[in-house]
């Protein structure tokens, strides 16, 4: 200021100044660096952030799988993630994705939430990506169980890879059955289950257990019974038919399932109305309950003597049924976020996972809901994880897979909640099962506003 006032304005140089050129170059570099494509081409280190829940395979993703993939990419790609408890996972997932956040490159989703994230275009499908860019590596689907892909296949294209497949498993105490003189039938029905529960309820042990305090867990208890009445036609999901009409109480099966739940209440532990997923394993490990039917992924520690007092005494088979033997499947899928800045790297990571090594690492981390076929036929693995006996029974009894409702609707969590409220109201005796099911149907129809 003083300089110019003393000497007059500085003469302007012709053309573009060096400073202007440098500023322009700096700006261009900053703009280029801000584009995802530039970062991908630059060969810089990339971090893939994964939204996970807190079960054994997700521990592996953050440790052994991350290390193996980092080594595989020569240190170029690192894997990090955030583990959420089951109930909070849904909220976190929806809040992140609905806000268009790029925090997570890969999101994991329970099967019943998948329509919500797909219908909102929050994820990018794997096979659509491959179709758009043939230079991407091939995906090896052949070595994996097909069950979970019921949920993540749209227009004949697979949108996710699945980390696990869960299915209901009937867990029973072999020693207590033997002591009570009960010879386990090859395929149980719910009458036999109730009678055994009554006989086994003594000496501080409850004959049976249910998990009625959690929305998803209680729906499981109800659905394990519903699925045993009628064959599920293709296209149905036990909740709605192709015309979007509620069918969960067709032929009175919803009511009969509630009655099946009520008839064993007297043989369940105190506090059964508040039990959720975390309460199930300790009950069995501590020997407080003799029989339970619930998802396969709940029981990884039952045969571990360091945490289970009755390790080695558990038997596993498929769920009891009253008519047909169908087994629901569920599990966790892994999707590429539509907002990820590293979609190609995420795809490559998943393609690498499908080569199989990652799934072996899942198993080594304690995961029991395996879907990698070589694991499922390996006698050493089957000996190590007795829970897998359930798959032998599924084959032996020609049990068919069916999808876990209400996966077809966008607001699955809401619909599930409405049915849960009515089921539990009937189980505690506040409503008759018939009234509860009628109310549930009315509420579900109302909730399907779209």
């Amino acid at each position: 200021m003083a300089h110019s006032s003393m000497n007059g304005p500085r003469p302007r140089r012709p053309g573009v100044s060096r400073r202007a050129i440098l500023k322009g170059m700096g700006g261009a570099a900053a703009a280029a660096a801000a584009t995802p494509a530039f970062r991908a081409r630059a060969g810089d280190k990339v971090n893939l952030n994964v939204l996970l829940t807190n079960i054994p395979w997700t521990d592996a993703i953050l440790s052994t799988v991350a290390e193996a993939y980092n080594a595989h990419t020569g240190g170029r790609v690192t894997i990090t993630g955030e583990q959420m408890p089951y109930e909070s996972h849904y909220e976190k997932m929806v809040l992140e994705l609905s806000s268009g956040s790029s925090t997570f490159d890969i999101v994991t989703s329970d099967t019943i939430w998948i329509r919500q994230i797909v219908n909102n275009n929050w994820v990018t499908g794997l096979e659509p990506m491959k179709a758009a860019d043939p230079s991407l590596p091939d995906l090896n689907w052949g070595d994996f169980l097909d069950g979970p892909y019921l949920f993540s296949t749209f227009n004949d294209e697979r949108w996710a890879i699945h980390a696990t497949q869960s299915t209901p498993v009937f867990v029973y105490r072999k020693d207590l059955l033997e002591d009570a003189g009960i010879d386990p039938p090859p395929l149980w029905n719910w009458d036999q289950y109730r009678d055994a529960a009554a006989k086994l309820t003594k000496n501080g042990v409850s004959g049976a257990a249910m998990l009625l305090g959690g929305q998803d867990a209680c729906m499981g208890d109800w659905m394990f019974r519903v699925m045993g009445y009628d064959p599920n036609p293709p296209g149905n999901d036990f909740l709605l038919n192709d015309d979007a009409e509620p069918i969960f109480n067709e032929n009175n099966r919803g009511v009969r399932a509630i009655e099946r739940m009520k008839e064993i209440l007297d043989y369940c532990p105190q506090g059964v109305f508040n039990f959720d997923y975390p309460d199930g394993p300790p009950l069995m490990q501590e020997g407080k309950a003799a029989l339970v039917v619930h998802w396969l992924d709940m029981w990884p520690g039952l045969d571990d003597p360091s945490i289970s007092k009755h390790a080695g005494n558990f038997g596993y088979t498929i769920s009891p049924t009253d008519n047909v033997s169908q087994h629901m499947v569920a599990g966790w899928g892994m999707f590429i976020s539509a907002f990820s800045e590293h979609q190609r790297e995420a795809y490559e990571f998943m393609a690498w996972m499908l080569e199989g090594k990652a799934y072996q690492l899942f198993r080594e981390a304690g995961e029991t809901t395996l879907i990698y076929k070589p694991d499922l036929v390996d006698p050493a693995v089957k000996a190590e994880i007795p829970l897998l006996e359930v798959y032998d029974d599924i084959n032996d009894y020609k049990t068919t897979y069916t999808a876990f409702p209400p996966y077809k609707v966008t607001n699955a969590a809401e619909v599930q909640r409405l049915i849960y409220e009515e089921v539990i109201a009937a189980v505690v005796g506040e409503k008759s099962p018939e009234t509860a099911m009628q109310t549930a149907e009315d509420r579900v129809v109302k909730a399907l506003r779209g």
Partner: protein
Amino acid sequence: MRERYGPWLMLTPCFIVLFVVGIYPLGYSLWISLNAYHPTNPSFPQGFILFENYVTAFFDERARHALGVTALFTFSSVSLSLVLGMGIALLFNIRLPGVAIARALILIPMLVTPIAVGITWRIMYNPELGVINYLLRLVGLPGQGWLGSMNQALLSVIIVDVWQWTPFMFLILFAGVRSLPKSPFEAAAIDGAARWQTFLYVTLPMMRPVIVLAVLLRAVDSVRTFDQIFMMTRGGPNLVTDLASIYLHRVNFKFFDIGYGAALSWAFLILLLAAVIAFIRYTGFLRRATEAG
């Protein structure tokens, strides 16, 4: 000119902050409450619907139930913590050895994160594996269902709330007790008043403004209770502990029915404000505070 606009200029940053963090979000939530807004369900009807959400809220059986549970929870919890807090404040007003340490220790529950409180009590309440039933059985009493019992769940969560927040009541009431003038007590002693008479006719009337303040603060806080209940019961079993905050969370973050959730929030807020105003008018709290000031 400077004198006229200077103060306003100096206050502008405060107004901006107040607008951004206070007024705008409130106004936006009010606007949202007048809309059908399902950000996670794009095929659902969306858009301005005037007071339809409020009409739905008025006839919402679940909302009315949640309101009733909240009222019962708040009334029970505040009453119990008031009685206990007052009792402990009077006890600690007596000069006894170790009182100072006990006073510090008694505040600990208040300092624990509500989420941790919820998890801890859920484990302790476990009917099969929890310490409470273990102790009951040890002395020959039958174990209880606690959080899993339709009859005991609400009482169980009230106990936890009382356990955590009685120290808060104690803190305020103890400060009040310590600040009371000595002469009325000396006069009562000279007149031969019994202890209970002194408490009833001297201590309580003089403590009234403090009690009203403590109840008001505690009640407003109790109405908003969420974390502990969410960890312990999530509103169950069969909605017996379904407080308004739990129901609101479900509508907003499980159903993502944001417009309706906003309307419910405003409806609950208006009811809470009405209750607070009625309480203040009934107790004459503001008048007394003004007189005292």
